[in-house]
Each structure stands twice: as C-alpha cells, then as structure tokens.
C-alpha cells in the first residue's frame, strides 16, 4: 500500500510515520506540508492512500481531496484532524475515513483497512457544513499526467465549447473538467454569466462597451477583448447589476 502523508506540522508527520511503521505499512511514498505540494507528489507517485490534514496553509485538506478526486485513479483519502466538529459530523454522515489527533495506532490501522475512495457527492456534502468552505481556491487542469493548479484569483473567465470548459487566466488558457454550471454555482459571489457558454470573474472586468454592431462587450482589465466576451441580450441587465454591486 503506497501512502502519502500530508500535514503542515513536522511532529504530526513524524507521528504518522512512526505509527505506520508500527502497523507494518512501510511504503511511504512521500510527505507534504500543504495541499499544493501534496497534489504534485500525488500526481508523480500515484499513492493508494493519502493521509490528509484538514487545516493547512495554501490549500486545506478538503480542497486537496477534491482535486485528488480528479486524478485518473484517485487515491483513497483518510483525513486527520485535531478538532473540527462540523467536518467530523460530515465524515460520519458520509462514511468518510478519518482519524483524530493524537492518532491512535488501532484507529489508524482500522482506517487504512477501510480506506476507500471519496465520492464527489460526499465531498460536496462536507463543504456544505458551516465552518467549512465549499469554494475551492484553485482549479485543477490536467496536462497529460501532471496536475496544474490555477488560483481562482487569477481566473479571468470560463468558456464552454461542446465538451470541455476552458479557463482563461493570467497564465494562459487551460482545459478543466468542471462543468460551467457547477463553476457558476460554486463561485457565484465572484463570477457572472454573460452568455450561454461564458462566465466571467467580476474582478477581471474593466468595463462594458457597445461595439459598432450594437452588441455589449466585456472589456477585461487585461485589455483582452475577445468575441467570446459578447454579453447576450438576456444577460445584459444582470451583468450591469452585478458590476454595480461590486
């Protein structure tokens, strides 16, 4: 069993390594101090199980789990946490594996034996709990077998064409596997739909402008002005309202 340990505290990682040794699970393929690093190691090492702390800098455990779930062969996830009453409620309700810190050997052994992949629904359910955010801070694009993380803050807009959704961000353009509808729902406080197949970040919009054909165009702060950014008549009022609200 290939295991990846993710925790931002060195002593907590040590403890897990000690206990894994005790129970004879010795194939530890890596250790990471935050979710971001964990995803990179996971993409490279393809662990079977990820022991995942919840409260971490850069990217928390819940979001990391959602990205891990997008891998071709998602690993099983066992959360480790000291005290997160809402998350734990959700784990129990959705049969998601977790161990409480200080970690007990028997409990870890049991969790490893039962370790199973998470379902997307169960993860969404966790995010709905108070005190847990349902909004990811990153999107995950898959380039061959590598995961590429794109910060939501860098995203300018999403466009759907037939099967895939492209994300246009400060670093270029990538394909992601989320649907436009789910993205719009997840980030509805920061994004606005401008036509049937485009959703734009409010923060990225500089202004709206009418072109010579009388169509309303979104002008981005980056200066970009693509035909993808024509606001459909249905959405003009809504876009204006959202922009005014800031």
């Amino acid at each position, binding site marked *: 069993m290939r295991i990846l340990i993710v925790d*931002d*505290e*060195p*002593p*907590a990682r*040590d*403890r897990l390594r*000690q206990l894994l040794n005790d129970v004879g699970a010795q194939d530890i393929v890596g250790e990471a*101090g*935050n979710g971001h690093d964990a995803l990179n190691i996971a993409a490279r090492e393809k662990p079977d199980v990820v022991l995942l702390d919840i*409260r971490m*800098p*850069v990217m928390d455990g819940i979001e990391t789990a959602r990205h891990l779930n997008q891998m071709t062969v998602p690993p099983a996830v066992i959360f480790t946490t*000291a*005290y997160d009453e809402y998350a734990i409620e959700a784990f129990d309700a959705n049969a998601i594996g977790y161990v*409480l*810190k*200080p*970690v007990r050997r028997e409990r870890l052994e049991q969790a490893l034996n039962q370790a199973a992949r998470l379902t997307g629904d169960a993860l969404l359910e966790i995010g709905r709990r108070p005190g847990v*955010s349902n*909004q990811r*801070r990153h999107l995950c694009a898959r380039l061959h077998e590598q995961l590429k993380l794109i*910060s939501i*803050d860098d995203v300018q807009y999403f466009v759907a064409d037939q099967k895939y959704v492209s994300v246009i961000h400060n670093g270029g353009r990538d394909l992601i596997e989320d649907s436009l509808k789910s993205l719009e729902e997840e980030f509805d406080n920061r994004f606005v739909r401008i036509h049937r197949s485009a959703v734009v970040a409010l923060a990225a919009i500089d202004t709206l402008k009418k072109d010579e054909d009388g169509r309303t165009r979104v002008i981005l702060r980056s200066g970009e002005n693509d035909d993808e950014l024509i606001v459909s008549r249905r959405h003009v009022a809504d876009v204006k309202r959202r922009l005014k609200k800031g």
Partner: protein
Amino acid sequence: MASTPDAVEKQAQAYLPDFCAPGTVLVILLVAELVAILLTLVAHESGTFLTELSKMSMFLLWLALPGTGILCAIRPWAERQGHTRAFVICFFLLVSMAGILAEITWQLTGIFGQFVIINDTHAGFVVRTLATSSIVVALSMRYLYISSEWRRSIVLEAQSRISALQALIRPHFLFNSMNTIASLTRSNPKQAEEAVEDLADLMRANLNSTGERTTLKEELETAAIYQRIEKLRLGDRLKVRWDVASLPMRALIPGLTIQPLLENAIYHGIELLSDGGQVTVTGKRIDDQLDISISNPVAADQRRRTSGNKMALSNIRQRFELAYGHRAQVNVRESEHEYCVHLLFPYDEGSR
C-alpha cells in the same frame, strides 16, 4: 453560542422591574398601604385612626394604581432611553401624575362634599401631595436604581466569569499539543518531557486566572509558555518578537488576555502561511495608561474566507469593560496583510 450572551445582556439592561407583572403590582399596593399607615400614624388624632387610614389608603391607591399602569405602558420605551434617563423620566412622570390626580381629587370633593372633607386649602392640598409623592417616588426610584445596578453588576460579573472559562485552552490547541507530545515521546523524549511540563503550567495558569486580574509579569510568562509549545509544533514558521521591556511588570491586567490574543494570531495568521511569519507584541506605558498591541501577518487570500472566530476578542472586551468601564479600549486594526489588536487600559499597580 450567540443567543446566550445576548439574553444575559438583555437581562442586564432591563433595569426597570416589569410593572405589568402581578407580583410587582402586589408589592406596589403593599408599599402604598405602608405609606398610608405611616402618614396616618404621624398625622392622626386619637380615635380617628381607622377612618383616617381608610381615607388615606383610598387616596394613595388612587395615586398608585394609575402610576403603575403608566409605568407598565411606558417601560419598553423608557428602557431604551438609557439607564439614568429612564429613572428621571419615570420620576417626573409619576410626580406630575400625582399632581394631576390631586387636582382631580380636589374637584371631586367639591362635587361629593358630603362624603369626603379635606381639611386644607386647594393649593395646600395639591402642594402637599406633590411634595409627599416626590419624596416617596424619589425613594423608590433610588431603591430600584440601586437594586438594578446591583443586578447588573452580578450579571456582568457572571458574564466575565463565563468569558474567562471560555478563554480556557481551546480544544484544537490541546489535541494538537497532545499529538506533538505523542510524537516527541519517541523521537525526542527530553523535549516531550518539557512540553508536558509546559502544558501543565499553562493549564494551571489558565485555571487560576478565572476572572481575576493578574500582573503583567505572570501574564507574559503564561504567553511565553504557550509560545514554547506552539513552537514545537510549527517550528521555524513561528517567530514572536516581544517588545515589552519598557512595560511595568507589576502592573495589573485582566488574566488571560495576551495568551489568547497570541493564540488567535497563530491560529488565524501564522498557521495559514506556508512560510509562517512573525507575531509582534509591543507594549509601552504612556503616562498612566498601558498600551499593548499584538499583530500578525495574514495570508493574502485568507481575509476574505474567514468570518473569523471573534470569541476570544469579545471575551477580552467584556472583561476589560468590567474591570475598567470606559477607561479601557480594545481596538482591531485590519489591513490586507496584517491584523492587529490594540489594548489601551489604565495603569494599576497590584499590592502583591
């Protein structure tokens, strides 16, 4: 969580008793009757006591019942006018009502002269009623004022005790520390030993300081112990700069102030930064005021996300208010990259 302190606060603010409640009405009737007996005892001539008393009772009930009715009606409004003003308003309202009723009484005796005779001039009767009722109302208002102050201070004190209890070590910290110790037990038994000792000291300091004020020296020591434990867990990510040398160490401060603020700075600031950062504690004395601030860096994308755990802060606010009233300030300064809590409070020196 939010509902309980709110309810308690409301109780603390309700300084006027509920005049609509049957119990209160009964007490008022009783007091009116006692005053009637008192007045009659002082004024009566031999043999006429009962007659005089019944006349006096009737008159006083005639004043007391409408008075209670008015208080019952205006109480919700008066409560909103603020503590002292509510009592002043009630006083003037009741006395002027007594005057009006006295006038009505005089007019009525003119009509039903054969039943009731008042041995006084018109003006004399009204003035006498006004004077007596002012004294009685003033005394009862004073009594209500003092007892409401007393109730309020009891509630505030209970609140601050609860606050102090809530400020006790957070479960998150406790379990994480236990996990660290479990880990160190094997890898570095000596460090584990020290950590257990530190944790015990910290718990003891926490338990001892419920509600009491403590010296700055003790408070800073507790915070330093706390810092040592967190350091084991966070390693180089945690740096704390103490710039407090110029503070008078004998000064008193409500217990459990600096440690919880340091805990907040670590929990909401340092822990969420992958490279960690520096918490800065600065303190200085400005004349007879002490000025302590605790600031921490904030992860760039964190501010938007955390609604924040404001419990420790509101606890500290409450305890400062109880200890110093308006003479202390607890302020928060927030910028994109920094969060800073600023304490300003009077310099008191302990006898110990």
